[in-house]
């Protein structure tokens, strides 16, 4: 199946994440947003952040930041990876949670 059906949800998430980060006093320098869907049907949106030497990566990986992101996105799982760059991973769809995204 094509990942195009997740494109509206991906756009919404891409616009929401900077706002949540800004509420926590973090600078939302987003370099790119990558949408992909695995063979098992899991759709992932990777929001790649632009590394800034003045910022601390651990601030972006704080639990309250991740919790607020997930809450604001309707309970979607949000993970962060600080290896090989800083990026957020949002699980947009899976066989289990796909029905939650129908409202977007």
């Amino acid at each position, binding site marked *: 199946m094509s*990942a*195009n059906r997740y*494109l509206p949800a*991906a*756009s919404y998430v*891409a*616009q929401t994440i*900077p*706002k949540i980060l*800004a*509420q926590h*006093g973090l*600078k*939302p*320098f*987003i370099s*790119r*947003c*990558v*949408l*992909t*869907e*695995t*063979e*098992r049907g*899991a759709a*992932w*949106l*990777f929001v790649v952040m632009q590394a800034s030497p003045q910022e601390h990566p651990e601030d972006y990986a704080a639990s309250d930041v991740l919790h607020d992101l997930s809450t604001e996105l309707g309970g979607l*799982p949000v*993970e962060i*990876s600080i*290896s*090989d760059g800083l*990026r957020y*991973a949002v*699980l947009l769809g*899976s066989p*289990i*949670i796909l029905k939650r995204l129908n409202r977007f």
Partner: protein
Amino acid sequence: MKKRRIATMMILILMVLALLACGSIDSPGPGTPFAYPAFTPSIAPGNNQEAAYAAAQATLAAGQREMAELSYQATLVNQNMDQAANAAAQTTLDYNQRQLMELSFRATEVSQNMTQAAATQQFITKHTQMAWNDTATAQSQAVTAVYAAYILKVTQTAQAQGVLDVQATQVAQSNATLAAYSLTATPWAAIQAEIVRSRDESNRRAWWGEYVVTPLKVILVTLVVLLFIVGAVMAYRQLMPVLDLRLRAIWRDNSNPLLLVSRKILDPDPSHRRFTSWVLRQPKLPQFPSYETLQVEIISPFDPPVALWIEETEQKLRVDGRIQI
């Protein structure tokens, strides 16, 4: 032979007298006695002394010449006597003897004159030396007396100056006392003194007010105004974003949240773009990217970086047990 012997003795006497006279001409050394100590020549004062010395010198020279002439004549007479003796001319011999006696007498006189002249010269020389010594002594004594007089005069001048200073101090004290007394002795004088004192104080206060207090007031007022302006500007810069946020929360008609991050208001609502652009135009503020223009890329899950990202994320979710994919 007897006459000849007498003539020879006369000649010898003449020679001795001539030698004595010549020896007296030389200036004698100290302590040398005169040939005739009984002789005491008189000293003429001033130029007469020099004239006497010259006369003695002339006497000596004339005496020497005359003695030489006399010796020569005696020799001639002696020769004549020898010739007369040879000729046995008794008359001539007698004549020659008388002439020889006269010559001897004359030589004696000349010798005495020369001796007297030499004594006169020595006396004059000694007297002149004594006069010089007396003159030098007198001059030294005069200089000493002048110096002593000068010292005495200086001392007297210093004493007089000290006396004058003391008198001047006493006069000044007396004047001050009289002035103070005249200022306060009578009620009218006291009033006048009070008036003068008040006038001086007023003048002093006016001077201070004109040149010190007024400029200080101007400077302080200017400083206060400048501080107030600076404080207002700083307060405006600090508080204006919050005020803008409040006003926007009141005026805005949508429910989108307003963000105040690092003194910047983030509002994606286009209706309030004016305020947002005002905030963003401020210098030295970081520029946020436009999130509306973010493009979502759709990439195959098998691309190397994306595949790694998927594997890493799913592995983390499995470990946490938060979701089963």
